[in-house]
């Protein structure tokens, strides 16, 4: 029997495959199903501070619009303390799920203000989250904001949340830092317990018929793992924080690649959205079978086996694939 266990942010997991944040976990029953299908941990869908604020503002607006204006209809909705917008629903699902499963549940938070990050992180801890994943999604549309300021913002959030909760905190990052390695180090110093590489933020598309901007997010594809492989391999063993790989996991092959690059855990979303929660079992079986066939004793054995630290020619990661690709581009048939 291969030992598939791993440690992620100090949490002992029975294997590295984590069901990542997705709309699937919005249904409380699905989290239990994920556990039954073999997930070693679940990252809940994201709590969007902005969305909560918008919903609260919308509720307040629509419940008050037109009121106290016309004598026959001084209000239009029943007034009850129960009608409110807030994180309660999220926290309720989190609480219910944490009561019904044995695997750790990591709450995901997408905030916009300092108050929001801290307030909701605390509530998540109280509701039974075993860890928190901060999904920092920030597009500096203001042309006067420097890269340094953006970086500082990330670090401030990390420190603030770390100071307010006692459970481990991971950061889900984008790859768009001038020096990701340095940032990773700084996150490490700021106390981050894990880095999740990388998120796929919503990039708008254009509808050329309606001439409107449309938000879109397609399911991930397998070739999206490459930039992640690169950075996981580069960071493995060089930072204290755990590393989780996210995006592009469609078969056990990607799981293996990520582990070899040095990921402590591997997260999957699109595969589950595409194939159903039961697909977790397929992934697990695939990983297990592959390791067994090749005589691995544990996941630990392969973890980081192809990281920058362990590859014979580490510079391959730095000048990296770029040159390789260019070289390959020259086919033998061209002169």
């Amino acid at each position, binding site marked *: 029997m291969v030992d598939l266990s791993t440690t992620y942010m100090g949490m002992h997991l029975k294997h590295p495959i984590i069901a990542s944040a997705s709309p699937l976990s919005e249904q409380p029953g699905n989290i239990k199903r994920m556990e039954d299908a073999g997930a070693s941990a679940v990252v809940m869908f994201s709590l969007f501070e902005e969305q909560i604020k918008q919903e609260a503002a919308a509720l307040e607006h629509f419940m008050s619009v037109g*009121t106290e*204006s*016309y004598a026959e209809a*001084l209000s*239009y*909705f029943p007034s*009850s303390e129960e*009608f*409110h917008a807030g994180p309660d629903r999220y926290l309720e699902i989190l609480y219910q799920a944490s009561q019904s499963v044995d695997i750790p549940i990591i709450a995901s938070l997408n905030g916009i203000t300092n108050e929001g990050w801290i307030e909701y992180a605390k509530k998540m801890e109280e509701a039974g989250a075993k860890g928190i994943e901060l999904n920092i999604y920030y597009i500096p549309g203001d042309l006067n904001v420097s890269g340094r300021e953006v970086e500082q913002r990330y670090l401030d959030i990390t420190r603030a949340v770390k100071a307010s909760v006692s459970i481990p905190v991971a950061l889900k990052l984008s790859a768009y830092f001038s020096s990701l390695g340095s940032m990773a180090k700084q996150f490490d110093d700021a106390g981050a317990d894990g880095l999740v590489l990388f998120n796929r933020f919503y990039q708008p598309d254009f509808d050329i018929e309606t001439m409107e901007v449309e938000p879109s997010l397609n399911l991930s594809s397998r070739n999206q793992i490459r930039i992640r492989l690169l950075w996981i391999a580069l960071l493995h063993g060089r930072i204290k924080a755990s590393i989780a790989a996210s995006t592009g996991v469609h078969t056990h092959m990607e799981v293996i690649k990520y582990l070899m690059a040095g990921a402590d855990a591997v997260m999957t979303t699109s595969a589950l959205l595409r194939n159903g929660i039961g697909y977790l079992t397929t992934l697990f079986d695939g990983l297990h079978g592959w390791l067994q066939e090749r005589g691995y004793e544990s996941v630990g054995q392969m973890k980081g086996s192809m990281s920058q630290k362990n590859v014979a020619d580490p510079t391959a990661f730095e000048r990296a694939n770029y040159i390789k690709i260019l070289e390959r581009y020259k086919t033998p048939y061209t002169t």
Partner: protein
Amino acid sequence: MNRHANQQVVTIDGNEAAAYIAYRVNEICAIYPITPSSTMGELADQWATEGQENIWGHVPLVVEMQSEGGAAGAVHGALQTGALSTTFTASQGLLLMIPNMYKIAGELTPAVWHVAARSLACQGLSIFGDHSDVMAVRSTGFVMLCSSSPQEAHDLALIAQASTLEARLPFIHFFDGFRTSHEINKVTLLAGTEIRAMISDELVHRHRARGLSPDRPVIRGTAQNPDVYFQARETVNSFYANTPHIVQSQMDRFAELTGRRYRLFDYYGHPQPERVLMLMGSGAETVRETVAFLQTQGEAVGLLQVHLFRPFSATHFIEALPPTTKSIAILDRTKEPGAPGEPLYGDVVTTLAEALSEGRLTTHGMPRLIGGRYGLSSKEFTPAMVKAVFDELKKPQPKNHFTIGIDDDVTHTSLDYDANFIIEPDNVVRAMFFGLGADGTVGANKNSIKIIGEETDFYAQGFFVYDSKKSGSQTISHLRFGPEPIRSTYLIQSANFIGCHQFDFLEKSDPLKSAAPGAILLLNSPEGPNDVWDKLPRRVQEVIVEKGLKLYSIDAYKVAREAGMGRRINTIMQTCFFAISGVLPRDEAIKKIKGAIEKTYRNKGPDIVRKNFAAVDRTLSHLWEVEVPKVASSTREIPPPVPATAPEFVRQVTAMMMAGRGDELPVSALPADGTYPTGTTAWEKRNISQFVPVWESEICIQCGNCSLVCPHSVIRSKLFHESQLEAAPAAFRSAPLSGRGFPETRYTLQVYVEDCTGCGLCVEVCPAKSKEQSGMKAINMRLKAPILQDEKRNIDFFQTIPENNRGRIDFGTVRGVQYLQPLFEFSGACAGCGETPYLKLLSQLFGDRLTIANATGCSSIYGGNLPTTPWSANADGRGPAWANSLFEDNAEFGLGFRLSADTHRAMAEKRLLELSPQLGAELVEELLNARQDEESEIQEQRARIDALRPRLEALNTEASKEILTVIEHLVRRSIWIIGGDGWAYDIGYGGLDHVLSLGRNVNILVLDTEVYSNTGGQVSKATPLGAVAKFAAGGKPVGKKDLALQMIAYGNVYVARVAMGANPQQTLLAFREAERYPGTSLILAYSHCIAHGINMQYGMHQQKLAVESGHWPLIRYNPELRTAGKNPFLLDSHRPTIRLKDYAYNEIRYRMLVNANPKEADRLIHLAQQNVELKWRLYEEMATRSGPEFPPVDTH
């Protein structure tokens, strides 16, 4: 102050004060919403939802019925089976309960019903307060107990309940609608122990034991014959005889418990008065205040306040009447035309006459008695009027059967009064706030009242005057704070603080009218402190100088913007009030304001609280005192409310009402029978939106969509020959007509910018987009101010272009319909209303031969609420004739129109045939048999009538004269019965069903908002499964009634379900088919609504989603197809393409449950989805049947 330990003092309105008790001493509330009593039922429902218990530890059941008649029936049934049951109602609602009231009283049943007394609909409907409704039920046998203030409404509600159990007679406990029901005042709440002590469980158990039970069977409700009915009717006498003593003894018990003493007749005033004024209700408070003042002036006057009106206790009355009384004025807040006097007057006269004749009179001889009417429909009743009545009593020949408060220049009933007699005490802070409807001003003021009334020793009173318009409305808050209980039950006459929350109110109304000398004026102004003076109109400057007002200004919108509050300025203005008025120390006030904010918004999210705090914190640094010059310098004059070109009635009467001076109109100015000219909204340029649509002629494809959906008919299109442009103003825009063959024809889309409410529906439906700039359409919202003057000139010119010939317009397309003149325009409906586009379309298609019966509801308010009304006429003077009867009888009312039309048409036919030889057989033949389906055919018929008319006049016989009286019926009259879902699905359903069964040619249009919109969002049988509404706070658990399918079952009814936003072409088709169909037609029109909790700008899009989700399948059932052997059932929309929740969760009415109770929300939306799918399968199956599978249509 006589305060017992642990007394809880709150600031609540009369409705809450009464409902608080009613809820605690009852087991079952059956209600139906009606203004101004609706709040009582809603509170009961809210408390039940929250699980609050009555004094026996049970949560009362609250049931909303289909009508007040239904509520009375349910209460009667509950009482008959031993439960304690109540209801809350007013006005016509109470009238609908009358049949049950006789029964309940006749059966000696204890119950207390709480009535917020309101006017009855006579020459016009009124939602406001008087005693017409309760006086109409005084013969039912109900005991009538009257309260005059929120505290009394609270106390007497309990005294009534204690008394009814003992007396076994049912009680009407009433108080004045709005003046008491909606006045917020400081109320000492009765403790649970006090309530408990007043209610005898033994009496409750006896009542329960009298309930019907098969264990001890009895029969009630027998039919009795002449031999015994009379005697049996007299069996109840002793109960009526005992009741006054029972009520007084309960009042005495109450006084022992609480220290608050009441008597059946309470006397206040001079110990040896000569002149006494008698009345009941809120006016008594004003009389009491005035009597106290007049006593200080040495006048021997007094007030005899009536609490128990019926049974009228002669003994108690004579005991209460001071023996020194020489004259009494008896005031009734009702009118009983033809009676020798109004009800209270009648009872007093009878009682004193009997006492005189029987030698029981305690006064020295018979006092001089005069009776008068006051305060109808919440007409102000002020100390000046009270004084005028007392003064009248001084005269040797005082006027009897007088009126006070109006100028009756026709029958000269009115007493003169000195409006300058104002006795508002100096130690009372009297603040008036002029706010924009729904801007939060009222809410913030209610918070201020709570702060002062509940957290200080001051007494507080708040009263709010609302608008009759649903968009761009004004609210006026009247707040009083002082060291003594506040009994001024009239609007502030002398304000020492005026908050004007909109700069333009200074021009539109007269906020300074009631300013006391030296008062403070707080103005929300975009101008800085140095510029604001120069921007004021001259008249306003003059008043400020004359009265020596102190002026403060703040740019509250700027502060709100900076604090992230958008346009919510309420807390900012509230902070200013506290800072300037000095009611409380500034720091303490700010702390308390923040406390109130926290309380109000804490469950709306911390962000909203934070923003409000930020607004409060920023306020004071933006508040400036403005130096007031010694003289007025402005050259800006306030324009007259209507132009000089308006018709005389509009200038003389309508304009006065528009300017808020309707109180000054004498009786002679008003029509005697409630008949008013139409089309008056056109004269009221309300200018309520800063943003208006602006047409881009280059981008426009002239489709007509914007014009079609405009709820306020402000977007008009015309075609005209290019030569007409010669006289056009420079800024006038036009475009070549798109389409070939008309090279010299121009097209103009004109926006009536002054009438626009800025809803933006037009922009959303515009399909034409700029190729250069994303987001730019053929119509876009732009700031109005820069274009206003140009557009006014453009509109003036546009109006000179003749309307397009209806005979040449394609009525079958949206593109064509835009050229038809709307005869429904500029209504006061909500911005973006989902109902009015249908009415406008109706007026465009058939307006010049349209008669409308309109059920009470939103459409009767924006359609018929004075001062201005939107139904209008064309250049020939033809247009919709409109009338509202009641809420419940509209289908029957409209049927009556048809019966008249049919009768008169038949009369015309008969006489025409008789006179055919003289009139010309060919003409008569054509007149009687001409097709009148197309507009051109209608025009031809009108031409025939024009030809006929002189021939008839020339004949000059009895028969020809008779024909002339009915000649108009030869043009096919289009009769429409219009109302909302509350009418069609609930209260009027029986009548609607019956009318549909008769097959007469009427067209019924149901503007289905799926909720009672006009009374504020109560659930109806049209409310869909899962939606939250009042009385369905947990989400409606059952599905919407499928009225279409029910009526299709008749087989001969044309039925359509339409949604303009989803398929305007189908809407148009359905309207035209229904109108042409010679039998009965029913159109159910999806109408998005403010009560759905949506951004109204996207209302049409939401309609589309309603259809795409399958919630609102578009159908037509055309019996004529069945006659032709075809399938009459046409499914006009596609199979659902989105899930129900993708539509529903855009609306707060569904979403609010998702947070409050996610599991239940999931369950209900799942059930609703199943319903949609089932219904769709049924519709699909019906759509694929063959014709003979539907019932045959009897076309005979």
